[in-house]
């Protein structure tokens, strides 16, 4: 009823090609942005910002990065944790070694270093694919874990191998309170999210998808696999690197290589599988699922007044979480993003389905 496009005529290619061609969508997104930028920092509690929203946004950003590679270009990667680590440590090293380097520049430099690492570890993708490539990217994970544990230069000879960031400031404004941190992260996510959305809709995104769907056919119609695959690796690891730098700087503040271990890579892979492969919005759904469900499961028994021992609660968490993953994959193998688009389709013809 409310959500329909009757009477919205597109008279130019430009109008036809916008990200949100339907007016109601644009209103919705506008409202969402307004809420995210104005209402949330004003209303949300510190806990909600620090423990829920900031990790959610950063993981969503990393998931967008991984989605470019896995969802759009079809190259399975188990090395995303490593690329996050490269982003984090590179940013930190620039910050420590070049005093006065602006925070945003540090984070972007972290992303650029992750890009280099990503391209290097992406080279095997030219020869191998599928499960074999996954194993090759696993090598990146183990190599980076090793490097950040054992090469003292990379942690500035810190005695314990742990590094931490000084108080942060960007453009002369401090980034210290939860609301400021949230705002900072949100800006990154918004800019990179919009850029990625446009990238995957454009020529290069179509090349990636062609490679994903059938690389031989794509090569036959004139797409260069080298270019397409390596750009996917580059873009993906840049985004993941930036997310890693944000995770380290904004969320943790002080970290060790364990923060970016294989579990992180698997977590990101789960996020995009649950959220929806090949979908930017799916990355947000998946990240929300990953961040919110464990926290909900921990808090629900307490809110209901049940006194569960923490170890039992934690085991139940794992079981329910596993069950939910299996359930969602059976109910909708294409992820939460697909549910979202089905819902929109249905809403369009509601209340008179044909």
């Amino acid at each position: 009823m409310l959500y329909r496009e009757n009477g919205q005529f597109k008279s130019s290619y430009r109008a036809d090609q916008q990200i949100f061609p339907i007016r109601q969508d644009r209103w919705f997104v506008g409202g969402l942005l307004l809420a995210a930028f104005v209402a949330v920092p004003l209303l949300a509690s510190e806990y909600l910002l620090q423990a829920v929203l900031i990790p959610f946004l950063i993981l969503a950003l990393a998931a967008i990065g991984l989605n470019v590679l896995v969802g759009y270009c079809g190259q399975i990667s188990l090395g995303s944790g490593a690329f996050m680590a490269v982003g984090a440590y590179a940013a930190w090293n620039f910050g420590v070694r070049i005093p006065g380097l602006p925070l945003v520049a540090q984070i972007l430099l972290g992303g650029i270093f992750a890009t280099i690492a990503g391209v290097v570890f992406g080279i095997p993708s030219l020869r191998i694919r599928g499960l074999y490539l996954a194993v090759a990217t696993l090598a990146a994970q183990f190599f980076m874990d090793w490097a950040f544990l054992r090469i003292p230069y990379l942690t500035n000879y810190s005695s314990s191998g742990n590094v931490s960031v000084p108080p942060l400031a960007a453009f002369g404004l401090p980034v210290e309170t939860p609301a400021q941190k949230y705002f900072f992260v949100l800006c990154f996510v918004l800019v990179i999210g919009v850029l990625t959305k446009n990238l995957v809709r454009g020529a290069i995104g179509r090349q990636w998808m062609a490679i994903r769907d059938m690389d031989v056919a794509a090569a036959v119609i004139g797409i260069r696999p080298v270019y397409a695959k390596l750009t996917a690796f580059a873009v993906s690891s840049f985004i993941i690197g930036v997310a890693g730098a944000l995770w380290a700087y904004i969320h943790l503040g002080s970290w060790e290589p364990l923060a970016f271990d294989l579990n992180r890579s698997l977590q990101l892979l789960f996020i995009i599988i649950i959220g929806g492969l090949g979908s930017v919005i799916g990355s947000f759904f998946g990240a929300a699922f990953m961040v919110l469900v464990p926290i909900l499961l921990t808090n629900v028994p307490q809110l209901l007044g049940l006194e569960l021992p923490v170890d039992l609660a934690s085991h139940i968490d794992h079981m329910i979480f596993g069950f939910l993953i299996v359930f969602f994959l059976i109910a909708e193998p294409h992820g939460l993003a697909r549910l979202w688009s089905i819902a929109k389709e249905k809403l369009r013809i509601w209340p008179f389905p044909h």
Partner: protein
Amino acid sequence: MKHALTRTAAVVLAVAGLVGAAGAAQAAEEDFIPLLVYRTGSFAPLGIPWADGKLDYLKLVNARDGGVNGVKITYEECETAYSTDKGVECYERLKDKMGGATGFDTQSTGITFAVTDRAMVDGRPVVTVGYGLSQSADGRVFKWNFPLLGTYWTAADVMIQDIAKRVGGEDKLKGKKIALVYHDSPFGKEPIPLLQERAKANGFDLQLYPVAAPGVEQKATWLQIRKNRPDFVLLWSAGIMTPTAIREAQGVGYPRDKMYGIWWASSETDVQDLGAAAKGYHGITIQNSAEHGRVHEDMKKYVYDKGQGSDKDGKSFGSLAYTRGMMISMLQVEAIRTAQEKYGKGKHMTPEQVRWGYEHLNLDEARLEKLGFAKLMRPVKTSCENHMGTDWARIIEWDGKKFKVVSDWYQSNPKYVQPLVKSLGDKYAAEKKLSTRDCAAEG
């Protein structure tokens, strides 16, 4: 499906709102101690008795004394599984509860690092008894951190002293080979700077053997040890890594009585299942935590006989890790008591006030006797410069059935520890752009 999803979304939003609101609640005449624990994961063998000890002591204080001068201690456990992100989430969830958490014992070096930054901004004490950042003993730089009763540096130093005693004096250490087998994480790496200083000063050869977390794969490490034959092995492990190491040592025929475990690797749970295979294994204890004192009897009388104890299967009560847990809770409670003496007895204490309490702890012999810790501990006194208090430790040995204390009381040698605390503390302050406090001015 769509309906189910909207309903889920509604629940998500509702619960998220409630969680946010719960933090604001405040209760009068209660003080809140958050209990970050890991009862699951690869560190659980250590985490369970530790958590039981912490929890039970708070129950004891409420049951026996009715709290601290009438102020009830409230508490809540939060499972971290030794993971930094979960620890951070726990910290955020608990820090504002009941008018402010009075002190976080994070039970993990990694979580301590992550929480230290936040605690400085939020103003919450971080209490790391026997772990954490060793340089945080310097209260001038680390206003909110309290590595009470010892750090990894003091532990490593005491171990070297005991080794020196066994070989016949510190001058005999020259030319000896001492290996450090460590969990490859900040926890395991902490003692390295001190051991390097010691190696330089005493002329022994320090060999480093990192073991990748969680430490179940140590074959290669122990084959190297068999090849290089170090005279002594220091073991910086925790949880599942410890029994694995002892078993591997047995496998390559390395004498267990030449092995020294850090306190987290020297509780009954680590060696019980190995029995005679671990015979001769040495460990270090914080203060004298291998001993039993009157507090154990009180615990039995007021908590366990009433069926309130956390240890349901009789495995953890009375073990070393459990006793250490009680000590940690005792220090937290005493900090609240000390704060009450300044800011008003029987009143709710804010985290800032309890921080003052941590900094002015003065547990003399009479006080420890009254608390039932007389045999377990020597007096502890903290100050603005010294956030560690004292660093007494003893060496214990597993005889196949139980640990027995085999050494006198040791204290670390300030000649090696102090310069490191100072230099690495200053480095930390410089990196974080912190200003140091002037203790003389604060009085």
